[in-house]
């Protein structure tokens, strides 16, 4: 008996050994039931739906399918959920099934790279990537600079979708953030379930775009349901409670876990990914090279005349300041380390670079964490924002959960 068991255990895929997210096991049982319905194996489907709600008593979709299959014994059932009399609820349930179904059948994330993540610094072990159109969050592991898909979860976003602009618009932001802290569920109302990770929305780019609001969190689920519908929150990102505990293993409050919230992730081949990384390094090197040359025209050609915000200065102010501080420089040496580079979501041709900058010169030495936003307009990459890398800020008291 024992040797057989051992062999079975060894045969398990490693991902299972590492612990698949509980929500994905739930999702598989759900989709199995739906596949049985599609295969017209209604008796099996009825049994499966009953097993599902026995195992997940708070699965609203499970109860719906159980209802459908019983109703099908009494009258023709035209579509899944058609016995539900509340239209909005029926629509939400169908949308959830569609989102889960599509994720299950579309495997483009399996062997491709997300275009948003080009470089990850060595002190960033994981990155969180949200694909709002697919109702999914992915966790990538930093494997010596390469990206390894760790796992993924079904998520809920804002009731009105994505692209947050104003306080109270019930949308989830698009942008690049980090987690400011962890709040345990015991300190929060039932709505947040197992707990919450507040995000630093609005970030400098949001502020530049005059976006308002705050209190965008990643949090758990209230106790009345296993999970919430795809579009249901007031702008927060919501995962099921078992998944919240699971994803907590990968999130460290502070800047070490970037949270990239995209409208839709663009998946590219490894070759395309490598090519983009090359271009980025060239861009960064040419900026440093021209800065070190102390040739002011070459250096300033990297900065946008019309869009620049460098430590609060526009191009004219920045240029005057630079001429003034460089007047006594005889040599300058710039080095960077701990480089993050992201294609900024929701914007055409916007790159975010984050790194530790070491500045050495004949009369001044400074080490500082830096953030550069580059915009390609129309064909040249130029810096549109330069500033101190933002550190965790206390989250605001108003929560758009």
């Amino acid at each position, binding site marked *: 008996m024992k040797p057989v068991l051992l062999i079975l255990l060894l045969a398990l895929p490693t991902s299972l050994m590492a612990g698949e997210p509980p929500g994905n096991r739930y999702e598989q049982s759900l989709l199995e039931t739906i596949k049985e319905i599609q295969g017209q194996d209604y008796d099996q489907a009825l049994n499966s739906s009953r097993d599902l709600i026995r195992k997940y008593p708070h699965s*609203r979709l499970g109860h719906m399918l159980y*209802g459908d299959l*019983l*109703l*099908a014994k*009494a009258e023709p059932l035209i*579509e899944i959920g058609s*016995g539900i009399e509340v239209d909005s609820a029926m629509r939400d349930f*169908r949308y959830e099934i569609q989102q889960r179904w599509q994720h299950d059948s579309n495997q483009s994330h399996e062997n491709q790279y997300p275009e948003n993540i080009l470089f990850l610094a060595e002190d960033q072990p994981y990155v969180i990537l949200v694909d709002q159109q697919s109702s999914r969050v992915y966790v990538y592991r930093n494997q010596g600079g390469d990206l390894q898909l760790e796992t993924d979860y079904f998520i809920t976003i804002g009731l009105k979708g994505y*692209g947050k602009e104003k306080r109270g618009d019930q949308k989830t932001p698009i942008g690049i953030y980090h987690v400011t802290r962890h709040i345990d569920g015991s300190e929060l109302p039932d709505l947040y379930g197992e707990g919450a990770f507040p995000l630093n929305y609005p970030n400098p780019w949001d502020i530049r775009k005059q976006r308002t609001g705050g209190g965008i969190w990643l949090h758990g689920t209230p106790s009345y349901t296993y999970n919430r519908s795809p579009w249901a929150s007031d702008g927060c990102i919501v995962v099921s409670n078992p998944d919240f505990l699971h994803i907590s293993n990968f999130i460290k409050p502070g800047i070490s876990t970037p949270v990239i919230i995209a409208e839709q992730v663009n998946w590219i081949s490894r070759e395309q990914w490598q090519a983009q990384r090359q271009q980025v390094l060239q861009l960064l090197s040419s900026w440093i090279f021209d800065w070190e040359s102390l040739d002011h025209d070459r250096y300033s050609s990297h900065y946008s005349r019309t869009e620049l915000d460098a430590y609060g200065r526009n191009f004219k102010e920045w240029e005057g300041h630079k001429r003034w501080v460089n007047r006594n420089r005889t040599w300058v040496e710039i080095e960077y380390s701990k480089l993050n580079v992201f294609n900024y979501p929701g914007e055409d041709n916007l790159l975010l670079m984050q790194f530790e900058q070491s500045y050495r010169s004949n009369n001044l030495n400074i080490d500082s964490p830096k953030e550069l936003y580059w915009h390609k307009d129309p064909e040249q990459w130029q810096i549109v924002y330069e500033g101190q890398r933002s550190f965790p800020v206390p989250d605001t008291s108003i929560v758009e959960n």
Partner: protein
Amino acid sequence: MTGQADKAIKLYEALIRDEPELPEPRNNLAMIYLEKGDYDHASQLLVSAINTNVSYAIAYANLSEVYKGIASEAYRRAISQSEEPAKYTHDFNLTAITWLDNQLADTATHIASLPLTSAIAPAPVAEKPGVIEAAAESDEAKSTLVNAANRDTLLIEKVRDGAKAWASKDFANYTASYIVDYRDRFSTHEQWVNHRRGRIMRPGGIKVEVANFTVKQRGPNRVSVDFTQAFSSPNYSDRVVKRLDFNRIGSQWKIVSERVLSVL
């Protein structure tokens, strides 16, 4: 009210004891339990009513009411937002429904179509502000896809029904799948009918299993269905890939040609 119901329960229970072979008292007693929301009792009694007389149609209809009752409980739970949703009034671990499933699966189950594959799932985004324009166009495309999916399901169902009619020697239903003047390789429709009748009504049990359907649009009113067919009779069996061409005639789809594409 309760007193009256209790009285009626006693009355029917006595009647069932005295006349155990009558379905009516069992059915009527079931109705009292159904009224009370006691689905377990109601369904058990209805099944026992059917067991005393399998053609007692009222009990089947009332069973449907039991299913509907439980279904509505399930739906209520599905949309409930209270922390402790109401419990089911029946015990779905033990309920009589478990063995009803098997008894009634063939007679009472209908799910016409379930448009749920990735391309045709309904998209509620149309209702969400902000993306209305984008959704308008694709909704139209989706509704065509839904129609196509419904049609595909319908035609697959027709092939299945035809196979069932064949296997059960229901000759009238078998020929009804074809256009009225269908003659295959024969020179008249009557010759084809006589030939098929001879084949199908031959004594001895037969089995016809159909699977692996592929539905293709061949013209505005013409669709083909390819499938595998496993036929077995006491002295012959084969497995073939078959193609049936359907034409839409009025609101009906009828078989206009039938071919064996390959033998497996």
